[in-house]
């Protein structure tokens, strides 16, 4: 229980103006942007996020929630609700991995509230991060250490970690965005820019308090996913402890274009095992130009986890990760070829 003030942004310029003190997403930034609230309220109740002020982006929703397919690709406003995008027939038909990643996320209630932009910024589920009574958490208190290294780390990352933080990126949708090579549009105090989604999230790099490359005041306004044959033949596989309403212990997105029996183009990304949304380019290289046999899929799975390191309770991801990739590859192979021409 702590007091905070609340402001409603009347337009994008004002949101950017009010959001100048958002820092780069540190938990102790004095201002936080509010979209669906499904992560922010949760962490405020846990005293992890302690903003003095919330800037509600809700009034921008009419302008920033469109779902606009075109021949070039899919434009999605950042304030579109997960549920709406998941149910859109074009998303389901031409970008199935995107639809699946949304349908398999969270619960119906959360999907009705949560926005796309907020979703990619959701915070890790690391228990030591989510409970401020733990002193050692470099993500909350830079320089304090990492309790998860010696603690219970079953749901921690095996890829992209360093000794400053082994937290796992928890989301699904961002994993699908990686495989479909999305771009993200931002507007900030210095104007608007568009960058590959793959460059939005940072590695820990000894500074896990900075999770993204967003500049202070920058607001995510849209996502663009290019149309392609492989987007049409894409899948998202999510492995989790229970059938619904649960985060992944491993997930993989695959976008596949075949040339006869050979892989012409493939994109593979991983969730539930990495510090940030993770593109497995090494695994893609293993398969490109080769037949998609089980043996080749297994080799790709191993390549996807190259360099991975466990911390005890999460060692199983070193085995589960490759298996998840194989499963996703085989599911993609079983899909009919894309109907679009190019």
């Amino acid at each position, binding site marked *: *229980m*702590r007091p905070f003030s609340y402001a409603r942004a009347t337009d994008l310029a004002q949101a950017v103006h009010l959001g100048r003190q958002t820092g780069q997403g540190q938990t102790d930034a004095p201002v936080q942007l509010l979209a669906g609230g499904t992560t922010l309220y949760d962490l405020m109740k846990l*005293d992890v996020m302690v903003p003095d002020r919330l800037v509600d982006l809700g009034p921008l929703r009419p302008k920033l929630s469109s779902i606009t397919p075109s021949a070039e690709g899919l434009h999605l406003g950042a304030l579109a609700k997960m549920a709406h995008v998941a149910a859109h027939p074009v998303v389901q038909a031409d970008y199935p991995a995107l639809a699946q990643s949304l349908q398999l996320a969270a619960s119906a209630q959360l999907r009705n509230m949560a926005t796309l932009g907020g979703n990619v910024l959701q915070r890790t*589920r690391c*228990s*030591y991060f989510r*409970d401020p*009574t733990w002193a050692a958490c470099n993500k909350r208190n830079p320089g304090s250490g990492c*309790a998860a290294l*010696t*603690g*219970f780390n*079953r749901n921690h990352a095996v890829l992209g970690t360093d000794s400053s933080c082994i937290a796992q990126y928890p989301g699904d949708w961002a994993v699908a965005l990686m495989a479909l090579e999305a771009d993200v549009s931002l507007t900030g105090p210095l104007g608007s820019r568009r960058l590959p989604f793959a460059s939005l999230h940072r590695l820990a790099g000894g500074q896990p308090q900075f999770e993204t490359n967003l500049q202070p005041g920058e607001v995510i306004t849209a996502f663009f996913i290019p149309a392609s044959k492989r987007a049409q033949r894409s899948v998202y*596989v999510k*492995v*989790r*402890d*229970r*059938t*619904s*309403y*649960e985060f992944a*212990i*491993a997930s993989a997105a695959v976008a596949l274009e075949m040339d006869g029996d050979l892989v012409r183009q493939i994109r593979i990304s991983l969730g539930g095992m990495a510090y940030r949304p993770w593109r497995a380019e090494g695994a893609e290289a293993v398969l490109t130009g080769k037949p998609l046999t089980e043996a080749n899929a297994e080799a790709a799975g191993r390549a996807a986890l190259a360099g991975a390191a466990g911390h005890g309770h999460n060692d*199983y991801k070193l*085995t*589960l990760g490759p*298996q*998840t990739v*194989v*499963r996703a590859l085989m599911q993609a192979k079983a899909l009919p070829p894309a109907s679009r021409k190019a």
Partner: protein
Amino acid sequence: MTFNPKSLFGRPTPRIDGVAKVTGAARYASDELVANPAFASLVTSEIARGHITGFDLSRAKAVPGVLDILTYETVGNQIKAPLGPDGGPTTTTLESNRIWHDGQIIAVVVADTFESAAEAAGKVHVSTMAEAASASFGAPGVEVQAITAGRPGEKTKGNQTEEKAAADAAFAAAPVKLDVRYATPPQHHNPIELFTTTCVWDGPNLTVYEPSQFMWGLKTATAKQLGIDPANVRAVSRYVGGAFGSKGNQTSRTAWIALAAKRLGRPVKLVPTRAQGFTIATYRAETRQHVRLSATADGKLTSMFHEGWEVSSRPSSYKVAGVEATSRLYAAPVIATAVNVVHADRATPGFMRAPAEVPYVFALESAMDELSYALNMDPIELRRVNDTQNDPVSGLPFSSRLLMPCFDQAAEKFGWSKRNPKPASMRRGEWLVGYGCASSFYPNNIGPAAVRISLAPSGKANVSMAAHELGTGAYTTVAITAAHSLGLAVKDVTVHLGDSDLPPVPVAGGSNNAATTTHVVVKACADIRQRLAEAAVAAEDSPFHSADPATLILAGGALRNADGLSEPLSKAVPRTGGRLEVYAENIPAGLPASAMAQLYNGHPLMSRGGNRKDVTAYAFGAHCVEVRVHSLTREIRVPRVVSAFAAGNVINPTTAHSQYMGGVIWGISSALHEATEIDPVSARVINANLADYIVPVNADAPSIDIIMVPENDDRVNPLGVKGIGEIGIVGMNAAISNAVFHATGKRIRELPVRAEKLL
């Protein structure tokens, strides 16, 4: 009882409190309206072992609306410490500066509003001297307390029991043997209703609104802790939003809230957080177990040895000692058991739905499955070969035991015959398919109880007793029993429960509630019938004048006889007064006459199915489950379960079905999902919320088929009623784990079974 109990029971009846519950009209303890309450918030420890060296309360006291802060320095000596679940010592809270476990209550902040209290609680600064904490088994610093004889009456010989020596010899000589170890995790009840307490003083009289499984226990224990006359304490809990064993003991909070209200001269209300529920109440302790079974080549057990290790707190020796149960299941000629308590820097555990059976039957029923493969024998047939109608420990007959009929009916409906016995041989698409089974059983317990029933000339009855509605349907079973005994419609009976101003009923635990309450209600109703009949035969204006009162019955709202004569209650009742009110007590066979007086003092004696002098009384059941394990990624799903139970006369098939089904689903949870995670270094709970403490969602329990096998057990108790609150969960964890083995060929001996163990 001069009538057939079957005439009372067995008709499916909707819950009489169902509408009140779904519309919010049902008042749970923290819904009770009290005037001008202040609000309490708890400060809990962030270390698991050490001492408090000081408080800085300045920032907390500066929060507007803060009224009082209780700490050991201010109130430590003002209450008597509560007793643990076993009646022995347990961890303390504000009594001293000692910290026994993570999340221990160390201060209570009281303020004008809930928000102020919570904010101030977050601003209490506590200085501590922390010591290295031992989290669980294997940690440096745990103390093992051996309790050599696991069952009462076991004789010791040197360092071990005579039974153990005999079991060792039989094991050594047997052609087929199994020697395996199992482990089960800590689990928390997580009832949806939190561990709330509201205390209101009126002069010397205290009312405690608190969810409880034992109204008279809460009343007397709170009085003892406060050093006041129990007559001055009233405990109220008309509805309980789930308890599962977590709300039956003396608590670590109640007396402090009462003291806070007294200091303030104002009602005080505490609604702790979900996370605090993981540390201020009890839990199911983790266990390690060792099982040795030996058998002849045709599957007859020649010996059984079962030893358990259970975690407890430093001061408490509480244990569930489930070997008491597992030693009763099969006809082994030599049975030896042992139990050990391992003291760690943890909160004191306590009862949790089928406390002894859930962990210990997992081990035994997993071991039986392993033995069936060692014997190359169908696991159901192995149980048939070792079935018995006599308690293998005492030699007494079971009051009734329909274990194999349960297996046969469950197996038939399940399609067990389609099972290919070879592990990892069945498949559907990408998924490996496994079938597994396990026995279920639970002792039949019954206690003393009292009730007050009044009958008005209008034909409306009131039943009042301090029984407990935990979500089981207790209001409805009491109403059914009274209505059918008095010849009324269920809607004409009003039931009052959950208030210690009403006649006492023992703790709603050990599945005794149904048997205990129905017997005393039937007794009171028999008294009503008797008095109406005697008044009628004495009255000249009655059609029954001069008849034998024993020939009169109550049916259809009238006094009747076999000749078709009748007299409505509107005429029969006024002969006895304005309304006919009776008070009745029932003491089950085998309990002393003092049992009722002891119950009034808060001590519930219980006739337990496992230590009766005449018979051993258990209910039995059988589970058949199908699991699917993904061939690559190894997620485990349970597409269907068929479970059969034989538990005497079923009072209300509607709520009985819910009880069984709920137990089965919780068994899925026990097998695949639930575990409280303890940080190995700090001994702190790290998944104290319902997102990270995983329980099944609807999609995890798509098809649960419950078979109620008819059973006439006229030796268990006069009404042939057996409690069913716990039996549904017993053995489910083993049945699923056994099915996982069948699907994959991989034996998992440590719960929960999760994907990573099958990779």
